[in-house]
């Protein structure tokens, strides 16, 4: 009972603190802007912990954050092995293959206005489909090791990157293209000096979307068959053993990996598209 009260108290305290910080004089300072969501997140964790204790929820259903953290510290080697299998071998490989393929097709399609007009709608259409359903088929084709996961990821990231790259390559003004013509510049110099740099904001938009898709693809694909390692594998087997704290541990790793990858791409984007109005 006391835990429930403590939980509510903590929630209230966190809320009040955030209200004062947000509406206070230093509300726009960078450190405060980072602190507020962190306090919010911390409050949720603490309330979670107390409520599980107070309402006596079966840890099989909902483990406490402290349980999850303990489990994580115990299982670091296994978590790491899963991470390497799923994210590095599966997701990263597929991301690179799919990205390069999409880029190549975009440049090919770019040479012909006709092709561009055909590829854009078809690509957007395919990007909305449940491509994850391909996973069992690919496991049959490529075996159950990381190659099939990389293949799923490659297909999943292909379409968003393709659509964004094609849109980006088109996004030059007539004046910029005319300037290139006054220099007597042919297709390739115009491509490298004008259209590719101009396409970068779009391409990065596609790459950011693709990071999330890559992770999802790699993990979900493992539900369909995997050697005895891998995040998706661990999640589904820990399920079967009702070891939900391990499931949550893997999810924490997935969340950290997801934000880290997205953050990396964003940093790269900021560096390479420093000139775009949205970054100035």
């Amino acid at each position, binding site marked *: 009972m006391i835990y429930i009260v403590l939980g509510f108290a903590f929630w209230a305290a966190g809320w009040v603190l955030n209200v004062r910080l947000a509406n206070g004089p230093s509300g726009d300072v960078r450190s405060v802007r980072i602190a507020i969501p962190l306090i919010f997140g911390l409050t949720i964790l603490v309330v979670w912990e107390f409520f599980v204790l107070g309402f006596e929820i079966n840890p099989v259903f909902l483990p406490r954050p402290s349980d999850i953290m303990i489990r994580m510290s115990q299982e670091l080697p296994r978590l790491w092995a899963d991470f390497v299998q799923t994210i590095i071998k599966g997701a990263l490989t597929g991301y690179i293959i799919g990205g390069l393929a999409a880029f190549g097709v975009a440049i090919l399609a770019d040479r012909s206005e006709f092709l561009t007009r055909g590829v854009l709608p078809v690509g957007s259409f395919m990007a909305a489909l449940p491509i994850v359903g391909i996973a069992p088929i690919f496991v049959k084709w490529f075996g159950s090791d990381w190659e099939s996961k990389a293949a799923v990821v490659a297909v999943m990231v292909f379409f968003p990157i393709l659509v964004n790259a094609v849109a980006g390559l088109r996004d030059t003004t007539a004046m910029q293209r005319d*300037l290139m013509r*006054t*220099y*007597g510049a042919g297709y390739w110099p115009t491509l490298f000096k*004008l259209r590719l740099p*101009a396409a970068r904001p779009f391409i990065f938009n596609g790459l950011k979307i693709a990071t999330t898709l890559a992770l999802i693809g790699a993990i979900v694909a493992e539900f369909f068959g995997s050697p005895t390692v891998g995040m998706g594998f661990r999640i589904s087997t820990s399920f079967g053993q009702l070891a939900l704290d391990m499931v949550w541990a893997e999810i924490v790793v997935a969340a950290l990996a997801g934000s880290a990858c997205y953050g990396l791409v964003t940093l790269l984007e900021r560096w390479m*598209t420093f*000139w775009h109005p949205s970054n100035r």
Partner: protein
Amino acid sequence: MYERPKLQSLTPSTTPTQDADGLSPLVIRASNLDLTFQTNDGPVHALKDVNLEVNKGDFVSFIGPSGCGKTTFLRCIAGLETPTSGALSVNGMTPDDARRARAYGYVFQAAGLYPWRTIGGNIRLPLEIMGFSKAEMGERIKRVLNLVDLEGFEKKFPWQLSGGMQQRASIARALAFDADILLMDEPFGALDEIVRDHLNEQLLQLWARTEKTIAFVTHSIPEAVYLSTKIVVMSPRPGRISDVIESSLPRDRPLSIRDSAEFIAIANRVRDGLHAGHGQG
């Protein structure tokens, strides 16, 4: 889109043609030039029966209301549009060949600098495409930045510069590869009066120093009269030349010349030409 038939050139040689008394060679020669655009709303007669001769070292302005074809004509000279009939030669070649031979520098209405390159990088753009050596590129960049009064801004980015400075950088870029001809399409249109005056002065100084042939499109009568040796007044619907005025003003002119009687007389003649065109339009 409009039809693009093959355009015949006046003389197929690559040397500039000479006019009757063998004096300054003809840099631009247009003969019965016609251009009709086929648009969704029917054909648009952008240029009709345009005849013009521009000598080397001339500063020719094109002035007229919207739709009179002045920008279209400039683009024809640049090889960016193709006339539907008539003859046009630039340096004795077809405009397309002249474009490939990098015979001119073009300055657009907006600076159009690439935001991902520094000012120096932007000036380097045509030089890279045309294959200059690294040492030469460096030297040329410094030289043209000097010409337009932008030394020290080589490492800055376009958005860090004001509108006037960006346009100066755009002019520098057009000068970098030493083309004989400079084609400018209302380059100062978006700038305020003071900056515009200043840039007009600088442009004249530049012209005096480099002895290029300049074709300049503008909306502004004082600007046209102040800058040019020859003023071409155009009128719309269909786009045609209503008057060609050879300016009697001396080549070396301070801004104060705008108050002189001669200046006002020429300006009035331009204005009359514009009114006449307007009436018929």
